[in-house]
């Protein structure tokens, strides 16, 4: 064993974390408030839909996923005071009215024959956008100062990927005719247009701006 008194680098050679990040505390809190809001809307509707879907496997899966997103909402609820927002409800809000319109449209289907519409909204539109928003945040925030947010995002992304795969497989098993393919595609287009209007989970700039080229 090496001499324990021999000085070592504070950051090990394999630890390449950087101090700078794209978000200050205020911006991080704003985004976290948007995350909590959308996670709440998602777990609420998944819970509500359980009674409305006749497919037994889907019914059970929605019940499991409902809790995943409730837990995400709880993580963000606890993170907000750590970001100097002592009243978490104040920032638990959508980024804009267009996001409210998206959620209203996504949660509208109720009939037992609309499982495709329900699943497409969640698993082909909302969850891919959540993964994008969380990934952008994870890759752009300070790896040192905002480590608690990164830790939560890492746990959350594991759920999101698993749920996305579950949802996509449920859809592939339910969509069996050309007409159902059209239904799913039409539903996805309808909701994707609303999401584009909203600018993503945290509004315009959710995943940055690839046309914003830094000056040399």
């Amino acid at each position: 064993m090496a001499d324990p008194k021999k000085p070592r680098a504070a950051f090990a050679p394999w630890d390449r974390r950087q101090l700078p990040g794209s978000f200050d505390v205020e911006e991080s809190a704003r985004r976290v408030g948007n995350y909590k809001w959308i996670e709440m809307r998602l777990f609420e509707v998944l819970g509500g839909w359980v009674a409305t879907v006749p497919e037994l496997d889907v019914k059970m899966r929605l019940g499991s996923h409902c809790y995943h997103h409730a837990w995400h909402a709880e993580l963000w609820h606890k993170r907000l005071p750590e970001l100097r927002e002592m009243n978490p409800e104040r920032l638990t809000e959508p980024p804009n009215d267009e996001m409210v319109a998206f959620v209203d449209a996504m949660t509208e289907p109720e009939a037992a024959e609309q499982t495709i519409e329900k699943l497409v909204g969640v698993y082909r539109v909302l969850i891919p956008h959540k993964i994008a928003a969380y990934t952008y945040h994870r890759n752009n925030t300070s790896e040192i100062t905002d480590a608690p947010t990164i830790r939560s995002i890492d746990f959350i992304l594991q759920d999101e990927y698993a749920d996305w795969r579950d949802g996509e497989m449920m859809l592939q098993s339910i969509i069996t005719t050309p007409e159902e393919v059209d239904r799913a595609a039409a539903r996805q287009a309808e909701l994707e247009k609303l999401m584009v209007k909203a600018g993503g989970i945290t509004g315009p700039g959710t995943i940055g701006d690839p046309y914003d080229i830094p000056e040399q």
Partner: protein
Amino acid sequence: MRNLFPPEDLARDDRFVRVPAEARIEDPRSNGASNPRSARLKPSQRGGPDGARSMMHGIFVGEIQALEGAGRTCWDFEAGSDEYQVPFELKLDMARQCWDESRHVEISIKLSEHMGTEIGEFGESAFLYRAACNPDPILRLTGVNRALEGLAIDVFNSMREFGKIAGDPVLTFCEDWMLADEVTHVKMGSDWLRKITANDPERRTRALEFQRVVDKLFSFNGLRGDDEDSPVRLARRFRELAGFDDEEIDAIAADALEAKNETASVESVGASA
């Protein structure tokens, strides 16, 4: 999607058969002549295995409805502090319950196969979900999490005992795990009832009255009771863990005994006629 989804509209595939609660209770395979309701469920009893399969099917559909009820509570009530809102943390508990109930449905399906029955072999009545339709969130919580989930404690404990007597380690193992979850759910109900009604004794009284109505409805004509020989025996120790006090358990036992005596008296009149 609307709020307050009615029991008639619960979505099911074609295997399920919806029946009125009375028809389910009076199904002769469950507790008819071959399996008198005064007797503890035993494998050696004539009709005992059928009774156990029927009870397992009842648990299965009950778990589906419990899942649906918890899910609806996530959707039906906004987070907030008004009378028809619920605390954010209560909604999180209901979401957690959704996950638990989903697992219970999975377990029940596997156990049903294990016990030699299949989905739809027995009828389903929506009686459990009906209690989850109360528009007052605290009454709903009390009716579901204290009355019905309390009943689930008794049922799971009885099935666990049946598994032990039958020498069935799979049944005993699964029922023991589900029993742990149910104690958690009942405790959730007990804790939230105390917390939300801490400064509103009138509302607490209404909630407890609703719980008693539900408890009486689900005494199953005396099927549940405090006697060792009851088909579904009151699980006092587990109810205590879940936040019931002795007085409350005694009241449930008294109601169950009353229901049993009423049923016996009706049956004796029927027999003499």
